[in-house]
């Protein structure tokens, strides 16, 4: 403490109390934490491949079931095809668009419901009801409304994801610690400032958890939509998977499933990272835990 010229007992006590904290930094630490995060996933992949190969070796459904030694090269070949990347582009564009819509709509509804008490009882139960609805059941309804179009898919994605996002936000606002609300009140935080500097930041962890759950629903709705709503001239991941089904192409279908899994896991891990970053900043994570 260079700023303080008076040596005092209290600063001495501070140094004693904080002295024991280990401060690891640098490349070694980054590499270690990357490895700690990676090895369970690598192990999981290896396990799946071994099991798959074992099933293949038993000869069960041998007419159609191919082993990883066939499927993986097939996937490799597919990756050198423009078609896969075009399909991936279309699917990801829909994912981003649908999720963004769900995020905006879910957040607005969540904020309104959290703010306006009379809305709470009514809209609260609608949100809970919507969450129990399997998204695939919405498709006939969506197709009647929008026809076989991207809009139908986006509509179902929003219905699937927005309730989770709204719920996360409402939970966060509801569980803002009363002590912090009192502190805000004595500080004179009112109206917009109260939301901007207290309630919204306080609800961030629950909001991020809601967004993460919302993504899972959005991605499932999107895949279901792409298998049901086939649009000419728009090759998507779902369309490719559907083609493989029609052609009885086991290797192709397996390759597409791997692609879908990878995207789902990758985006999910982005949310997990965001979630952890939020919690770490607030001291909600145990310091010693890497994963």
């Amino acid at each position, binding site marked *: 403490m260079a700023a*303080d010229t008076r040596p005092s*007992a209290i600063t001495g006590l501070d140094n004693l109390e904080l002295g024991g904290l280990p401060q690891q930094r640098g490349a070694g630490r980054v590499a270690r934490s990357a490895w700690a995060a990676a090895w369970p996933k690598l192990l999981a992949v290896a396990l799946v491949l071994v099991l798959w190969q074992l099933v293949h070796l038993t000869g069960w459904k041998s007419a159609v079931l191919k082993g990883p030694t066939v499927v993986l090269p097939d996937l490799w070949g597919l990756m050198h095809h423009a078609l896969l990347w075009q399909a991936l582009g279309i699917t990801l564009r829909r994912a981003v668009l649908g999720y963004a819509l769900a995020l905006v709509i879910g957040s607005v509804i969540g904020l309104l419901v959290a703010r306006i008490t009379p809305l709470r009882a009514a809209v609260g139960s609608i949100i809970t009801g919507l969450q129990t609805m399997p998204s695939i059941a919405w498709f006939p309804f969506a197709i009647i409304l929008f026809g076989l179009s991207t809009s139908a898919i986006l509509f179902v994605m929003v219905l699937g994801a927005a309730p989770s996002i709204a719920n996360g936000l409402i939970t966060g606002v509801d569980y803002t610690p009363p002590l912090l609300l009192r502190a805000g009140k004595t500080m004179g935080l009112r109206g917009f*400032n109260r939301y901007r500097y207290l309630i919204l*930041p306080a609800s961030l962890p629950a909001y991020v958890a809601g967004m993460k759950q919302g993504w899972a629903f959005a991605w499932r709705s999107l895949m279901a939509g792409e298998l049901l709503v086939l649009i000419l001239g728009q090759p998507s991941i779902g369309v490719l998977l559907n083609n493989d089904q029609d052609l009885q192409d086991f290797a192709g279908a397996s390759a597409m499933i791997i692609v879908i899994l990878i995207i789902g896991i990758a985006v999910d891990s982005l949310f997990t990272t965001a979630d952890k970053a939020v919690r770490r*900043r607030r001291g909600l994570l145990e310091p010693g835990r890497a994963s």
Partner: protein
Amino acid sequence: MSMRSGRLTPKEAPGASAFPNLTIVADRGAEQAAAAVRVTEVSKVYGQGRGALLALDSVSLSVAPGEFVCLIGASGCGKSTLLSLVAGLDMATSGQIDTAGQRVTLMFQEPALFPWLTAARNVELALRARGVPKAERRARTLELLETVHLGGFGAKRPHELSGGMRQRVALARALAQDADVLLMDEPFGALDAMTRDLLHDELERICAERTLSVLFVTHNVREAARLGDRVVVLSSRPGRVIEEYDVPRQGPRRIDSREVSELAATITDRLREEMSRHGG
């Protein structure tokens, strides 16, 4: 619930004669003119009908400008309720609370810092809330953190600080509100004795540097005797003022000094007497 007037007439406290600095206050009429906080016959009832609980019964007390008043009582005496009422966080059932239009701020037993903000940002938010321009905020924040000896810790988040340090950030945040009246609700109750002693010194120094009127709630008799210019004793269920002790200030005190111990013993006796009333 009848509205009885005023506080009970103070009795001769046991052991008072052994303590020459101690005077028992019967009439504070002289100070009525310029009180920073005046609480007049305030009662607070929680609930309604048969389940109603009388938390405060016709409590009257005042804090003079620059005075440090400690409010002490056993559990359930409504100490915290009284502070909430003065802070305007809750409404009194009857009676008047007058803070003469001054800024009042409240500090809690927990630091109640915003965990997503750094120590400096926590202090700065209080400045922002009362409209201090951005250009001034940085310098004021650093100044306040240095006041509580945390100049080098502005970038730390609350969870990275010790309990005592967090409570000092909370004190800096309370000071940032530039209040005339500081209400403190057992602010050091959760800290270890060593840290608490040091914080008493800090608080004494900070109050000496500015004209703060302080109403300090505690259940720690020694703490009250150590810090107060005046110690007000509340009875329990319902809370009522039963005794006031003036403690003339002759320079900084120590918690282990003879005067503090003697006053603490006197107050403890009075509190025990009050508790035995509930025992039968």
